[in-house]
């Protein structure tokens, strides 16, 4: 097991390296370097910045030097000092801006995965064991619609629905009086009253695919002889289904948890923009619009790295649950 984990971690290093290169390319994409833009913005606002400060910044980020040196400085600043560069729009270090946002993104993503499983697995087992029943058709229909409807559209319709029928502006994570209030029990309660919406919308997006896959897998498994054997031995139907075929049918699904995570973070970005939730999505969008590239690059880097680490964790869990995987070599 230790060997398996070690090997997977070693595999991860080149992946993270490529991710860092892509993020760095993204930072370099807009014309002109970051400092020129920064100084220009400051001048525009009637402020002046003295030459020594500019030179210090230039030295710190290796601007004007060959690209690989710039990359080296950028990545070593991140790895050694946790310094992701400066956000010229916010005039603060990027690292002060991102962690809270990322935390909320991770929190929402993890809760969404749990909610998705709580909804999808029982639903899939039900439709597979009650094939062609009314609920089978109903759930299949809903999941098809879920498959065709992107989360951000659902979010738009949800906003309209709340406004039209309840007169509530449901965008944002807090109602007006709590937006700038300090954290308190009431504020948390206020948030809990709002946060279920993005989670359910995202879960609906993912549930559809999971129900379809698990249903198909389970239908295959239910026809296997071992199910017949178990039934002949007198196991109750419930114990039998949950104990054997469901576990087998869920296997391929757990092994793609990494992709689910990637899809989730993608979807979350858009839904958060629509619902105006203070996760990484809206800030990333803002940063891209104003070409605040160190901030945008940090988000792309960290969101991707998080997904890769999440995938690693899920792989390790899977290997722990299924000896075939860790022994495969």
């Amino acid at each position, binding site marked *: 097991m230790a060997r398996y984990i070690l090997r997977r971690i070693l595999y991860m290093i*080149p*992946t993270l390296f*490529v*991710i860092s290169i*892509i993020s760095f390319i*993204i930072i370099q*994409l*807009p*014309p002109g370097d970051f400092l020129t833009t920064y100084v220009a913005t400051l001048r525009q606002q009637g402020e002046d910045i003295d030459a020594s400060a500019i030179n210090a910044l230039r030295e710190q980020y290796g601007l004007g030097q060959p690209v690989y040196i710039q990359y080296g400085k950028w990545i070593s600043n991140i790895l050694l000092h946790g310094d992701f560069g400066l956000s010229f729009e916010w005039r603060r270090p990027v690292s002060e801006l991102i962690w809270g946002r990322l935390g909320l993104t991770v929190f929402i993503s993890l809760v969404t995965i749990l909610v998705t499983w709580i909804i999808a697995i029982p639903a899939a087992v039900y439709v597979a064991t009650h094939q062609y029943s009314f609920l089978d058709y109903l759930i299949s229909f809903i999941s*098809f*619609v879920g*498959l*065709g*409807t*992107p989360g*951000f*559209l659902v979010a*738009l*319709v949800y*906003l*309209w629905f709340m*406004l*039209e029928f309840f007169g509530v*502006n449901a*965008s944002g994570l807090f109602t007006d009086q709590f937006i700038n209030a300090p954290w308190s029990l009431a504020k948390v309660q206020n948030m809990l009253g709002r946060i279920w919406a993005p989670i359910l919308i995202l879960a609906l997006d993912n549930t559809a695919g999971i129900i379809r896959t698990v249903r198909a897998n389970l239908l295959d498994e239910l026809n296997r002889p071992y199910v017949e054997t178990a039934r002949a031995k007198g196991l109750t139907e419930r114990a039998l289904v949950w104990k054997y075929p469901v576990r087998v049918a869920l296997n391929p699904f757990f092994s793609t948890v*990494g*992709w689910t995570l*990637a*899809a*989730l*973070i*993608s*979807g979350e*970005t*858009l839904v958060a*923009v*629509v619902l105006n939730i203070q996760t990484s999505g809206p800030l*990333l*969008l803002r940063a*891209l*619009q104003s*070409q605040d590239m160190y901030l*945008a*690059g940090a*988000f*792309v880097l960290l*969101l*991707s790295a998080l*997904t*890769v680490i999440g*995938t690693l964790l899920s792989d390790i869990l899977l290997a722990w649950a299924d000896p075939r995987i860790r022994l495969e070599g």
Partner: protein
Amino acid sequence: MVPKHGEQTLAPEVSIPSTPAVQAELAGALKEKGEQVYVAPQWKLMYWKFLKHRMAVASVFVLAFFYLVAIFCEVVAPYNPETFSTRYTLAPPTRVHFFDQAGTFHGPFVYGVKRDRDPETLRPLFAEDKSVIYPLGFFVRGTPYQLWGTFESELHLFGISAPIDQQGVFLFGADRLGRDVFSRIVYGARISLSIGLVGVFLSLILGIVLGGISGYYGGVADNIIQRMIEFIRSIPSIPLWMALSAALPPTWPVVRVYFGITVILSLIGWTGMARVVRGRFLALREEDFVLAARLQGASEMRVIMVHMVPSFLSYIIAALTLAIPGMILAETGLSFLGLGLRAPAISWGVLLQEAQNLRSVALAPWVLLPGAAVVVSILAFNFLGDGLRDAADPYAR
């Protein structure tokens, strides 16, 4: 060696002469469909299997309709998508009637519309003026346009004879600037539906080349390409897409942005295709007929193009169809955020930007209708792809 497919066990025993005349005679002799199955060519088996998937068949018609509309959008749209008029700001969908108040049948017609303002909220109010009747006709003359930028005409599929400043027909209502939402959706179909095809075509090329190398040669190349696919699939695509498309210069003309976006989408979207192609190559590499071709001295290119590709073409078409919705969704999402296509380009995503403004949505929920067009076309592509995938392997079950 155990033959995998039915046709290989049959082939030595029932040798069927291959001239079309003889085949037709044979097929005629075997009246029962159950028996025709044995002599039908593979494409026919696929066709029969496809017909069994009702939703897929229905989707063919839905998509054919959508694409016809997209191709002839200038004719189908009653108005120019850019024509705006403050008179019709956020006008609700015009209702089409068949009977007037007295119950007399007129054929399809619309009433004249009176515009008022709510004295308190200043919200515009639209009411039907039941004394004026504008019959709705087909192929009426309206605003002139150039079909595909070349043919000049002023015939529109439907409309009323009155000019728009006098009375407008807004099947799906009007937006904040008083532009006809229906016309805009129809024009948007052209970009939204074609971007999926172009993007999928680009990713098909990447997918076939890389997936083919991976599956055919195996070894180190396979390993590298597999790692690449895993890598691309494991990073969240939308943040990456957002960052890349934000880098497209805002000064670019619409057409160039359009191709820029498709290239960006397919750079990430080819992985699904490559997986299918690789899987098929791996499966076919060991088949007897490939070995036979190779032993006869066929070149690698010939083995691939003449012997292998035709036998997995159906899988590729199915995978292609299933990849289109992702492309359409991605374009819609990006344009919705303002990072993809931008006005004056019209795509469903661009139109949905209007819905970002909660006030617009509250006053005029019909600005959400481009979303409905997206959902319907994506569902149709999903069903069609499902049906094609089932039909691609007519020997399964």
